[in-house]
């Protein structure tokens, strides 16, 4: 059965293929009781209906005929036309109706983030910053509908097209889901990794944090405060406070997020209290446990929510670099029993330099 919309709290594991990685993770977190801003996924069924309705598939194929994947100019031209085609068509009535209904259910004129949620066949590193569209602080049903379509179109960026061409992935088989999520009013936001990205040390949780929305941290526009927490003992081991010159905040009137320079003392102030640092670390730890592998977590502290309940998870995905290295590591052999003790006595740890 097709379904255009799935609320985060109704995404089951069998739906993962049609909501994409990001929404699947939000669904899982929501259902595990992790505090996540509410929202819904516009499924790949909706996208497929869009293609079907306007026979867009054929149109896309036509644009891509004869494109040389090594000739970036030709790829770029085709990709641009396709994106324009997708944006210029109206959504199928039922899809649009479903999106509007789901949006209305979130509250009156609720500011939301609209993000593409890639499925597995897409660019392997597409979830990294800036590769797919994210629209922040979107308000009003019309704007939401338009941005969902923009996200669909982002499947045809020059880079994505050329990647699929080179890897012989049929374009039409790649589908896109879009997440619509209540906008967080972030006092502070950032990223937490459940290992030390520099050393791979799994006993550490490393947190980057800055004022406002987390996109500034993710995209590297601002040098964030950095905290290192011992994962098991839940102790703050290290903190580096940076000069945070800019923040991304919602502009209600403009209906978008805007960069704002930080001029006051907050620039050099630590943007998280000790209790907040530990709360972020515990959240990351919980998500690692739930997903059974090291995680890369985006989080925010919402100014509208009461203290103690104001930490929200925005995204959690597996850490890939060190987890891969770990798999490739040669097996070590251990000495056990009396041999272990003899070995320890003959080579005590303190003597190793």
């Amino acid at each position, binding site marked *: 059965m097709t379904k255009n919309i799935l609320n985060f709290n109704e995404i089951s594991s069998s739906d993962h293929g049609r909501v994409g990685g990001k929404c699947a993770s939000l669904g899982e977190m929501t259902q595990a009781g992790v505090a996540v801003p509410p929202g819904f996924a516009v499924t790949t069924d909706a996208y497929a209906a869009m293609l079907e309705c306007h026979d867009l598939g054929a149109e896309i194929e036509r644009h891509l005929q004869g494109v040389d994947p090594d000739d970036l100019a030709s790829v770029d031209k085709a990709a641009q036309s396709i994106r324009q085609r997708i944006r210029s068509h109206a959504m199928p009535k039922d899809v649009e109706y479903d999106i509007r209904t789901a949006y209305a259910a979130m509250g009156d004129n609720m500011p939301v983030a609209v993000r593409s949620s890639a499925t597995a066949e897409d660019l392997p590193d597409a979830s990294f910053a800036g590769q797919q569209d994210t629209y922040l602080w979107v308000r009003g049903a019309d704007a939401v509908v338009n941005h969902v379509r923009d996200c669909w179109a982002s499947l045809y960026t020059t880079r994505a097209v050329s990647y699929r061409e080179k890897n012989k992935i049929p374009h039409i088989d790649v589908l896109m889901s879009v997440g619509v999520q209540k906008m967080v009013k972030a006092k502070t936001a950032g990223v937490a990794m459940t290992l030390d990205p520099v050393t791979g040390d799994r006993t550490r949780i490393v947190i980057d944090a800055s004022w406002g929305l987390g996109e500034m941290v993710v995209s590297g526009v601002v040098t964030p405060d950095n905290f290192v927490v011992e994962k098991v003992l839940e102790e703050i081991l290290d903190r580096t406070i940076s000069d945070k010159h800019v923040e991304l905040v919602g502009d209600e009137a403009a209906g978008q997020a805007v960069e704002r320079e930080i001029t006051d003392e907050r620039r050099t102030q630590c943007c998280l209290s000790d209790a907040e640092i530990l709360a972020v670390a515990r959240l990351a730890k919980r998500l690692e446990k739930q997903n059974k592998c090291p995680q890369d977590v985006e989080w925010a502290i919402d100014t509208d929510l009461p203290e103690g309940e104001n930490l929200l998870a925005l995204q959690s995905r597996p850490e890939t670099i060190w987890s891969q290295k770990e798999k490739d590591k040669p097996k070590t052999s251990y000495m056990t029993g009396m041999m272990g*003790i003899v070995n320890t006595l003959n080579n005590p740890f303190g003597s190793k330099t």
Partner: protein
Amino acid sequence: MDAQKSLFPSAFEVETPKGADGWKDLYPYYTHFNPNRREQDDNTFWFCNSQHWPTPFRPFDTIMLDFAIKGLGQYNTRHLLVPPANGVDYRILNGYVYFSPVAVAPEQIEGRVPQFMERAGHYFMNWGDLYANWKEKVLAKIKELDAINFTTLPDVEALDVVTGGVGLDSTNQLFDQYDKAIEMCYKIWQYHFEFLNLGYAAYLDFFGFVKEQFPSIPDQAIAKMVQGVDSELFRPDDEIKKLAKLAVELGLVQAVHTGSVDDALAAIAAAPNGDKWIAQWNAAKDPWFNFTSGNGFYSTDKYWIDHLDIPFGYLRDYIERVEAGEEIMRPTAKLLAERDRITSEYREMMDDEAQAVFDGKLGLARVVFPYVEDHNFYIEHWALGTFWRKMRELSQLLCDEGFWNNADDMFFLNRNEVRDVLWDYSSSWAIGVAKRGTDVWPAEIERRRAIHLALSKVRPLPALNNPPEVITEPFTIMLWGITSEAIERWVSSDSDDGSLRGMAAAPGIVEGVARVLSSPDQLRELQKGEILVTPVTAPSWAPVFGKIGAAVTDIGGMMSHAAIVCREYGLPAVTGTGNASSKITTGMRLRVDGNNGTVTVLD
């Protein structure tokens, strides 16, 4: 390295403190740095064991040093053949003891492995039974010690000695009792080491494995996985807490606060329900108040059972806290749950194969660890407490007989001189003449007292000569926290940048006012929230850990008492700073960073 350029001075170049000339005569010849063996002694690295002996010895007190060193050595060298380690050699310099672990020659290590595996393996395989047997042996010795009784020689032997044809006199009993006490002490020290190094070895094996898995894991996290929550070392403190709660429950608070201990006990006994409390007090007293406020190694140690004002002071403190609505009992269920949580969370981060190895090593470490913690109560607190009490009784008797002027002056004689005094007493009694010692010892004791006092005024050097390239002796690392790193710290501690470095022994950061204590007698001076700064702490200081903000010690390894108790109380601790207690003075504002092992003087 050239002896001329030693990192630490030669023992032969260390000056005698002013007023301490002749100090060598206070200690046995085999503890001296002997000029005839200078070359050998200068080529050896010696570190001051101020963790166990933070103050200079009175002559009698070297008994504990002699017996401890002998017990430690015999198991490594003769019983178990620990492959790389024999015993620990020792010397006394200016009243402080310096240790040097004796390594086994590299070519002999391999040859000792099969015997070690068989012998140590037997202990590990039969730990439970052997430990149960150990407790029985130790309790039997304590009982024998307790039965020792010194009596004044009679003016006339009893008639039945004559009519019964005994043919011997009361002096035999006197010698026998003294020799027996010394023998018990000697045996107790051998028992002390029967399991200890094996316990440390199993712990080290686990520790090393976890460090290999997680190089950055704090030592304290590994300790937490193994530590018990119901160690008998916590019992004395727990008993006081229970008594405090009971006093509040039974409405005896006012009675407890009446005057001296005797006044208070009388007031309690007279109060309704008082008998119930008194019964519990008496039950707690023996054995749990066989608890020293030192470490059991000194004749000056004060045992709770002999100084009831000490536990009574803690009792009154606890009552105040109970009345203020505080929960004083240790949250053992919570501590146990926390231990399980920590263990399983680290375990989950390992791969399957490592998890299986972890389980094995953790299992053994937890089997042996209760001994590592509990032996301290049986030996240092209970058995040695009983020994010291008997020796004090003897000192009192000989004082009454005129050999010296103060009740505990006997401890300015060594144990062999005491036997000479018994001979003097016996023979002059038999001959019917005046004792000779009464004209000798009072003056000699005064001379020794002055020397001892002069020695006490000078802090010991942390070490002598050059350290080896790396410290590899496993028990040195475990017991004293002496690693190559620690030695570097001692060397650099002179270059003062306003902060002291030590071991990050228990996490957290606290700022507060320092209270420097050099003796347990000063514990009552501690004010709530102050930072305790001291050469070394003892388990019986536990009650004050409820009120301090942090602890800083000069000496202490990963398993030092201050570290264990601070982790338990959730207080920051920095141990093994080398010299915090001499560099810091009471009243200074400090920041103690137990995460990084630093102590900073703030003003």
